[in-house]
């Protein structure tokens, strides 16, 4: 069974600054992968390359074995790749409910009326049901992050790319989020999750990957990766022998 999503020798640089250097990474069907690394390490750029909003300098992106490197973002969404943005990108002038309906209708190709009920249930799961008719532009940052998640889920993805959805949450809110993501996994969706709140990540992912200076410097079982000296040094600066 080919990996559901795979990066093959992906390279990308902005000017002389290397964002990705010959990266090979693949996500198995149903797997949940955590992606960590210090700021500016190229994590969000990888999501841009996966969803087609950023073109790589070299290398290929494969979805279920097919090369989608040239595919437009809207085609990739319909194919089953969904993404939440690190900096929320709501449709400001539209209501929360309408935001999710757009993703559901155009992400799955169903008729608008066909997706109404599913969208409302999704808002309930994401804790936004009481704000369904409120314009998205007026939401608090946390609610906008929830809307990002709800919109990504509304496209009924096969692969869900989460970009720092847990930042700024209280412990209770974080626990609710973790449960929600576990549910999503149960329904067979494969996940890649960029996150700085490490304890939330560890509660969900099967594998942890560390990206630094455009290179994968660790890739394996989460607890082992966290203890790895090179990760400690890069991630927190505590010297390897420390």
């Amino acid at each position, binding site marked *: 069974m080919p990996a559901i999503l795979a990066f093959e020798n992906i390279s990308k640089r902005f000017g002389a*600054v290397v964002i990705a250097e010959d990266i090979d990474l693949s996500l198995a069907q149903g797997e949940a992968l955590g992606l960590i690394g210090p700021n500016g*390490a190229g994590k969000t750029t990888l999501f841009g390359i996966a969803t087609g909003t950023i073109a790589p300098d070299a290398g290929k992106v494969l979805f279920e074995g097919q090369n989608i490197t040239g595919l437009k973002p809207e085609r990739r969404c319909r194919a089953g790749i969904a993404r939440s943005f690190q900096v929320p990108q709501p449709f400001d002038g539209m209501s929360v409910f309408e935001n999710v309906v757009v993703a559901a209708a155009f992400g799955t190709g169903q008729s608008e009326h066909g997706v109404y009920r599913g969208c409302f249930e999704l808002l309930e799961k994401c804790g936004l049901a009481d704000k369904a008719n409120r314009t998205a532009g007026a939401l*608090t940052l946390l609610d906008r992050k929830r809307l990002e998640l709800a919109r990504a889920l509304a496209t009924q993805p096969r692969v869900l790319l989460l970009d720092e959805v847990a930042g*700024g949450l209280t412990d209770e809110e974080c626990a609710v989020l973790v449960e929600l993501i576990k549910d999503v996994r149960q329904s067979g969706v494969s996940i890649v999750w960029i996150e700085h709140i*490490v304890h939330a990540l560890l509660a969900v992912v099967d594998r942890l990957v560390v990206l630094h200076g455009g290179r994968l410097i660790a890739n394996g079982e989460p607890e082992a990766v966290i203890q790895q000296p090179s990760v400690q040094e*890069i991630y927190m*600066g*505590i010297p390897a022998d420390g």
Partner: protein
Amino acid sequence: MAEPLLDVRALDAHYGDFQALFGVSMRVGAGQVVSVIGANGAGKSTLMKCIAGLIRSRRDAILFNGAEVGDVPAYDMVARGVALVPEGRRLFGSLTVEENLLIGGQHGRPGPWSLARVFDLFPILRERRNVAAPSLSGGQQQMVAIGRALMANPDLLLCDEISLGLAPAVVREIYARLPDITASGMALMIVEQDIVQALAAAQQVYCLQEGRVVLEGSAASLTRERIAAAYFGVRSAQGSHHGAA
């Protein structure tokens, strides 16, 4: 301690409806080196932007050289003696290395730092002075960003995440130069994820976590465990940090 060069008093900061800083207070003496550490999203960069004037705050929330500067805009702070090396370097892409340095000093103040002196500090830049900024390596770009701020001859140099995206060896090379900068009596505030460099360089350390100062003390007095606990927001003995957040 004599009148501090920089005195931050119960500073709050908001991004639209999201509050990033909750009553932050800290001081930097003239010629002193202070480090601010904390996990990503703790509010370190927001603090720097408030001090540099990119984010306006309460007039009396920030005092510099005894004057209330909380609501002074960024373009006036340079003349008062505050220069910021922004996170991610952000050099001017259509300017050469030399032009980036010159524009740093354009509205700065008279003082020891000139083009020649910056080139002495970072000799590699003298060779690459006429090269367009984007074609430099990450480390070299960081040197230009620091040189650009020095050209304004500030009393307080704010350094935001110097180690960002740089290999450890390059980070060590840059930090090795800081003593040459502070030798001229310039105060330094370093914001860093890289704790080792931050501690080694500083006399005073503050640790931010979710917008609050959770740890403060001289670099020597702080043990690795207390820093790691504050750094990771792991529930230390004082119970949950989140209170009313």
